[in-house]
């Protein structure tokens, strides 16, 4: 398996899957990201990231129902695995920790 490093875009995708709560499939994730981050990931880039995340074991997928608008093709729904959750928590903690270590002074200086 590939390493468990979590890229920035991957983190956003992972978080979005969490946000969508079981309703996360390709187009839904894409639209959600667009809505919240003002970036427009291409569907290819998104699926590429999804496939990477799945390889790393952070998400799992199941195939769901087809709709007419999809030309009869099924959707694939993604959910976060336990490992994915752990990694997200860890990344969040790490960030907070580092954030807290920054002396206030520097912030003032920056402003």
């Amino acid at each position, binding site marked *: 398996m590939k390493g468990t490093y979590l890229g920035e875009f991957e983190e956003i995708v992972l978080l979005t899957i969490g946000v969508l709560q079981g309703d996360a*499939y*390709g*187009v839904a994730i*894409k639209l959600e990201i667009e809505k919240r981050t003002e970036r427009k990931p*291409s*569907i*290819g*880039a998104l*699926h*590429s990231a999804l*496939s*990477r995340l799945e390889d790393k074991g952070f998400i799992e997928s199941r*195939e769901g129902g*087809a*709709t007419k*608008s*999809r*030309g009869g*093709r*099924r*959707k*694939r729904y993604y959910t976060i695995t336990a490992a994915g959750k752990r990694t997200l928590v860890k990344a969040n903690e790490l960030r907070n920790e580092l954030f807290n270590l920054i002396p206030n002074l520097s912030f003032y200086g920056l402003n």
Partner: protein
Amino acid sequence: MSKRPPKWADRFLEWFCSEEQIEILQGDLYELYEWRIAEKGIWRAKLCYIKDVLDMLRPFALKKKSPRKINHIAMLKSYLKISLRNLIKHKVHTGINVAGLVLGITCGLVLFMLVKYELSFNNYHENGDQIYRISSATTVEGSTSFVGGVPIPMLDAAKEEIVGLENATLLWSPGSDDFKIDRANAEQAIFKNGIKVAYTDASFFEVFTWPWSEGNPKESLSQPNELVISESLADRFFLGSSAMGQVIYYGDTPMTIVGIVDDAPENSDLPFDAFVSIASMANNPLTQKWTITSESVALFVQAAKGVSREQLAVQMPKLKERMPEKLRKYFNENAGFSMDHVLEPLSEYHFDTRFENFSGRVASRGTLNTYAVVGLLLIITACVNFVNMTLAIASKRTKEVGVRKVLGSSRGQLVLRFILETFAVTFLSIVLSVVLAGVVMRLWVNDFMEVNILMNPFQDTALLSVGLGLLIIITLLAGLVPAFTSARIASIRALRGHLAPGGKWSTFRRGLVVFQLLAAQVLIFGTIVVIRQIDFATSSDLGFEKEFIINVGLPDTEERTRQLLKSELSGAVGVESFTFSQNPPISASERGGPVNIKSKTGEMVQLNLQIRDTDDQYQETYQLKMIAGEWLADKKVADRYVVNETFARKIGFKKPKEALGFNIQIWGIAGPIVGIVEDFYAKSIHHEIGPMIFWNDPGHYRSLGLKLNATNVSRAVEDIERVWEGVYPDQAMNFYFLDDQIQNLYAGEMRMSKIMSVFATITILVGCLGLYGMVLFMASQKSKEVSVRKVLGASAKHIIQSFSLEFIKLTVLAFIIAAPVGYYFMNNWLRDFAFGVDIGPGVFMIVIGASILITILTTGYQSFKVATSNPIDSLRNE
């Protein structure tokens, strides 16, 4: 406007996208597309769709190669095993296949080597492309005769008259004398025949590439009595001790050895062992004579760099102007005569059959082309055979293909397997052929063709590349077709036992068989014509007696020895009669030339006359038929003539008999015609019969002809040898039988006929193999059909007929093409002969008859077997 996304983009996606991903990805793309139509309109949606498809070209989405790893080694092992089993299972097919291929390629290679050998002649001279030979062409009454030599003074004329020469050199090889060496404390050693000697000077070694191992080529051969010998000759003469500076006798003249040169290479037309300085001959009158043109002299010029052949050729007429006043006048006054000079590059020296050369080996381009064509035909026939058989076997193996496909073989693997298998068989066959060709070469061909060719593919790049080329071509031809046809068939059909190559390929195979038959028929045709022509040449009535006649060459023309021989031979047992003359009636060497003769009406006619100097016994010994008058008397001077019919006609007598008593004058000698003989062949039947006269001239009697008693030939020869030893104690007797000599005139044709018959036989054999293979295949393919027919009431006879008819049709079809092709080629060949046989309908009948017979014999047994088999055997299993 369709609402669907662009079709081609969709197809592209389906093409590159893996099966696992396509469902989801395409679904997402469609959904986005719908959404975009609502949001941004159809055009933007379509554009975005295309962009997204292209953007999908990411590693995760691409088709993966087979996810399972295949153990290739194990697979190859399996292929090898199955291939071997298959080869063994189809023993007969494999045998025919390999035998045919080996046979064809072996012969093809032998012919290739022969042609290559002849083409390699004189190709090693560094200045080769600048060297030209100048030779003579004498024209009388429109017919031109060619002589490879020139008068010796022509060397200086060429040097002075021709602009653009770098060098010029002359070789003179008037026949060799004995070499004698005084050995310390031993008898004088004498080296007789077989040593080829030429007179020349240092310029020869400047023009031609000829390495010296001792001595200085620049300063040698300028003084009289200098000698240069080859290394092997030096070894023979001095047995390893140094030869340089030694004095030996050539004839009776002492010569100093001033240089040792390498032996002449195998492929040289100047195969001399010794060179004597031409200055040694300064006193010989021939060196000044303009009237003698002989094959024993060769003039070579080397053009300066950048001077073309044309630039030299246009200067040739200048050489005529250098002839002495008297000769020029003679030619000028007789408009019908002319003496011209021909410039010919060294690269043609070995191939121009108009001239002789010093190796005695002139290869006509026509013969070489014939060899090349025959060789090519053989190789093609063998390949065709191979392709055909491989196709036949392959179609029997469709079940195997089916099973392999079901078990997961890809088409590529199957194709690879077929090709590998063909490659292996071809490779083995070619290796076998090269070895076999080497053996055949060494055992027979070298002797027969008087060549010395070694086959070593590791040193001979041409041979190696031919071998590799054949390997690739045959593998591709014989491997690819069955590979693709068999591999393409659907597995279900294959498993049911459908035979793969359908109608299209069976036509193809038939075409191949027709081609084979065609090649065989053309060769049979050619062989029959050649054999007939040679038979005609050697057995036709030549107009004189040739059985039991021997000819002895005389070392001198002195009256004393002649009288001595006469008195001794009169008592010899078994000698019926004998005659002194210049030549026997038929002879390759000529005496005579252009003359002007006053005809019956008083006009002067020009004749290219042949002259035979004979004594009184000539007519009796050779049994020439007299038409009128009587033969010559035994006289010491020429004062009366016997002529042949053609001569009499040419000087205006419609009835040759009437020429009797007519007075003619030849070369200033006048006399009456006292006898007229029937025309006879004076040269090989390549030539027309020309006008000829006979007169007494003892000064030219170089040949003793003896008619022996048929019952006592060996005794007679012994007697003659005894007489000879009494008269010429220190000379060897050279004699030959006239009929052998006549055969020698056709040596080239004889050789060709033998080669043609051998190769025709082999082509026929290979063709038969092809036929046999095809009938085997047909028999197994049609066994069910035949059985059903039999059950429905067909008799064995019907079935054999229908089988044979099929093949006879093919044979006739081949003949329709072969007949005109063979006729065209052989008619061309026969044009070389003044007297050629007719290609009558008989030849065609033989060819078609023989090939139908061969076809029936080859296919008969298999047809019979199929026709008499029990229908149950093939119908039981379905």
